[in-house]
């Protein structure tokens, strides 16, 4: 399945192998995985909240946009919600293309949109109490780079 939203942990390596095995014409596979950082030992737990229903819709739209924009063989997104501890995989994306430039650009695009356009919210718990992670201005700014540039076709 190309979009999964789940509370259970997933095996990033096994998912990547399964994805790669199913994309025969592709010469290039790029993955990104987001891990819960330990923040120097001050972070003990992270909880990801999401908006069931809208989450799946938003991720499917982001994936479809990437598939339309670059020459991809496939793209997948897995995102967890619920409680996690440092070192846990929060999410991953994988893209497969004939050429590496497409696979890289599409993976970055998926991440940029997923950060700012998919309904997830992170709360951190640690030595200094709990706090909702603030969105970063630079994440919003990152979206701007996809507006006017043409998708790469070489690589």
């Amino acid at each position: 399945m190309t979009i999964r939203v789940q509370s259970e942990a997933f095996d990033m390596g096994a998912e990547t192998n399964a994805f790669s095995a199913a994309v025969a014409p592709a010469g290039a596979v790029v993955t990104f995985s987001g891990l819960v950082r330990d923040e120097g030992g001050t972070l003990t737990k992270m909880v990801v909240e999401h908006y069931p229903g809208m989450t799946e819709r938003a991720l499917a739209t982001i994936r479809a946009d990437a598939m339309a924009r670059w020459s991809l063989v496939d793209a997948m997104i897995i995102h967890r919600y619920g409680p996690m501890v440092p070192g846990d995989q929060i999410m991953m994306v994988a893209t497969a293309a004939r050429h590496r430039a497409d696979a890289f650009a599409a993976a970055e695009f998926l991440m940029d949109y997923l950060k700012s356009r998919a309904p997830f919210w992170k709360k951190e718990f640690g030595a200094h109490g709990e706090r909702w992670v603030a969105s970063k201005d630079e994440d919003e700014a990152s979206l701007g780079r996809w507006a006017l540039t043409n998708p790469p076709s070489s690589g």
Partner: protein
Amino acid sequence: MINVLYFAWLRERIGSSSEQIETQANTVADLVEELKTRSPAHALAFSDMASVRVAVDQDLTEMTASLQGVREVAFFPPMTGG
């Protein structure tokens, strides 16, 4: 009748994840003004609208969006996935 949902710190400040609202509001902004009168907690949650995002029937939109035929409105802070 509109189902209003709250997420993250909006949910915490309001103390509820959803409420059924009988409203005549035409736009999201009108609905927000109505919600602010429901309790001090609502007023606080909506005191800084620069930090509030809205989805109407599960699509991200603007505060000016119409509520015509809408069944679900969700309020939340800027998203922090990934």
